[in-house]
């Protein structure tokens, strides 16, 4: 299984964190921006209000001429930079001030209307935004006081750009960090996954990589490696015990057999009855030896060792040859044995072991299917792999028993003769596993269908 970076928990987490960072930065910078903008506006409004109040007081004291003089004075002498004044009559005609004509269409409705004035500055024509307030003086004349707010606008604009850039940059930084984080995480988890897969595939000596960073992954890898060491050690001990036991059993079996053989060859010949008994005993020895050999093969497959020197095996041809080999025996049992071929179905494996697998399955059917039955061996290409099916219409195995049918020494059905080691299907399962394949027992309604899937 390959890890898809975009489908990892780490990736989803970093996307979440990135969104959170974006939200937090937006709220912080956005409120600072809005606060600053309103502060600037408030200050402008305060100036306008102060000026209006002093001009209204002037009007109360010295009437229209006083206000006009005051306005002119402020414009000419100590007029603050960017200050805008206008005194107009009730029909919006200019009386005095530094605005050439009434900038609104009639009386503005807002409390702080804004407008633009064009000024000729040395070298260029500029448009200045102005924020203003209008008062109606007693007598019906109109007094307008305003302030050039272009500087504040520029400041606000810069602040806004800085805010947006801040949000963008921190989001980008968070996203990059998150991506890097999830990539690293996915890579390390991927290494662990791949290593585990290789161990499963028969490289028991492999260990998880330890980066040396003393982080939680290293801690995990070290712990898992310890478990693997322990398991390998146990498997090795078990294997060694098994091997020496098997060897210790084989040597006396060999001597026993040789002794009995020597007896049979003795001259003068033994009495026929004794001869018969010794031959019967020899058959028992052979049976023991066969069981031992099968157990050894199963142990070898179960130890997780990879198949030594695999070669291309045409399973289709092998199945045809074995069916041809077994056909006369099947006929002698009153059974029909047939082969459904696939053309060519090549897998990487061991021809002898695959032949043993098929032999065990065919012999299993031969043992249990009553005369008149039918056994079918089918080979199908399946993707890059091969599906081997051996089906019969015998008594089959009850669905509940199928799962444990491949366990050693499990036998079913009193119908078949009870010969055999009870290891046939275990060996089939072990050989399938050794070829990275799998074994499944199914019902054939009636009968048994054994399916072995082998990868190409």
């Amino acid at each position, binding site marked *: 299984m390959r890890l898809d970076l975009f489908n990892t928990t780490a990736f989803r987490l970093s996307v979440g964190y990135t969104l959170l960072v974006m939200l937090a930065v937006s709220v912080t910078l956005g409120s600072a921006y809005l606060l600053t903008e309103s502060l600037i506006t408030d200050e402008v409004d305060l100036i306008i209000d102060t000026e209006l109040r002093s001009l209204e007081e002037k009007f109360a004291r010295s009437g229209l001429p006083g206000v006009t003089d005051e306005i002119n004075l402020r414009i000419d002498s100590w007029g603050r930079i960017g200050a805008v004044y206008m005194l107009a009559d009730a029909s919006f005609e200019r009386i005095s001030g530094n605005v050439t004509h009434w900038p609104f269409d009639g009386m503005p409705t807002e409390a702080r209307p804004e407008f633009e004035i064009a000024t000729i500055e040395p070298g260029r024509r500029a448009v200045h935004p102005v924020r203003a307030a209008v008062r109606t003086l007693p007598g019906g004349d109109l007094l307008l006081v305003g302030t050039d707010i272009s500087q504040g606008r520029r400041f606000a604009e810069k602040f806004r750009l800085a805010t947006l850039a801040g949000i963008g940059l921190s989001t980008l930084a968070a996203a990059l960090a998150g991506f890097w984080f999830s990539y690293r995480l996915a890579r390390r988890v991927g290494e662990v996954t791949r290593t585990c897969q290789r161990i499963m595939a028969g490289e028991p000596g492999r260990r998880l990589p330890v980066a040396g960073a003393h982080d939680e992954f290293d801690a995990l890898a070290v712990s898992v490696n310890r478990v693997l060491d322990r398991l390998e050690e146990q498997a090795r001990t078990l294997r060694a015990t098994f091997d020496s036991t098997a060897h210790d059993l084989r040597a006396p*079996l060999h001597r026993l*057999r040789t002794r009995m*053989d020597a007896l*049979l060859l003795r001259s003068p010949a033994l009495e026929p009855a004794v001869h018969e008994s010794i031959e019967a005993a020899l058959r028992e020895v052979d049976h023991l*030896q066969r069981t*031992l*050999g099968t157990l050894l093969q199963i142990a070898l497959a179960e130890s997780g060792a990879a198949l030594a020197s695999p070669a291309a095996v045409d399973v289709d041809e092998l199945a045809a040859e074995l069916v041809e*080999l077994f056909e006369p025996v099947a006929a002698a049992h009153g059974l029909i044995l047939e082969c459904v071929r696939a053309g060519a179905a090549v897998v990487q494996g061991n021809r*002898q072991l695959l032949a043993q697998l098929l*032999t065990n399955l065919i012999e299993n059917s031969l043992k249990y299917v009553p005369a008149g039955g039918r056994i079918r061996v089918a080979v199908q290409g399946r993707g890059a792999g091969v599906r081997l099916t051996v089906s019969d219409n015998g008594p089959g195995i009850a669905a509940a028993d199928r799962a444990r049918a491949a366990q050693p020494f499990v036998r079913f059905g009193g119908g078949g003769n009870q010969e055999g080691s009870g290891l046939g299907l275990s060996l089939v399962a072990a050989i399938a596993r050794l070829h990275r394949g799998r074994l499944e027992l199914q019902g054939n309604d009636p009968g048994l269908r054994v399916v072995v899937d082998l990868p190409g």
Partner: protein
Amino acid sequence: MQVLLIEDDTEAARFLVKGLRESGYRVDHAADGREGLSRATEGQFDLIITDRMLPHLDGLAIIELLRAKGIGTPVLVLSALGAVDDRVRGLRAGGDDYLTKPFAFAELLARIEALLRRRPQAPHTTRLKVEDLEFDLLARRVTRGGRELELTARELKLLEFLMRRAGQVVTRTMLLEGVWDLHFDPQSNLIDVHISRLRQAIDRGSDHPLIHTVRGSGYVLRSDA
């Protein structure tokens, strides 16, 4: 015939030596690999039987050293290891045949006989003949007393195997290995059924049956009973 047996299990070796002597062979015994190698190098043997696992020097190493010295004496390897690949490794190392312990003594005798009687077949042999049974290897045609027999491809292969070893005992295991390339023993009496079919085709109605059963061993194809 002079045979060298290299076997560290002294009790098993004792019975093997006794059995082989009773069967008419002169036998020398070496109890470990080093002794076995020096005996094999010095003496004149027609056949060497060696265990696969030996103290001091492994059976396969002995074969490789002998072959390196240009000694081509046929070697039969005995092994307690049942692994399939072991046989391949044994044959690749230069062994001529391979037998897994424990084996029937009759099986060992048949293998020995086959190895001793093996001589390079003239490569241009195109006809095999035993009495009035003739096998045209090129045309894949078999006649008995001039009458053509109808045989399947597998029966032809089986018959060829027997005729090339005419007069020698051939065991069921040898047939499974030689004709079907199967190096394990199925439980069924497969070979007996195939032989009986072949026998039907070859010997039916004949006064001189050619295929004979050797009790406790296997089969032999020869002209007289």
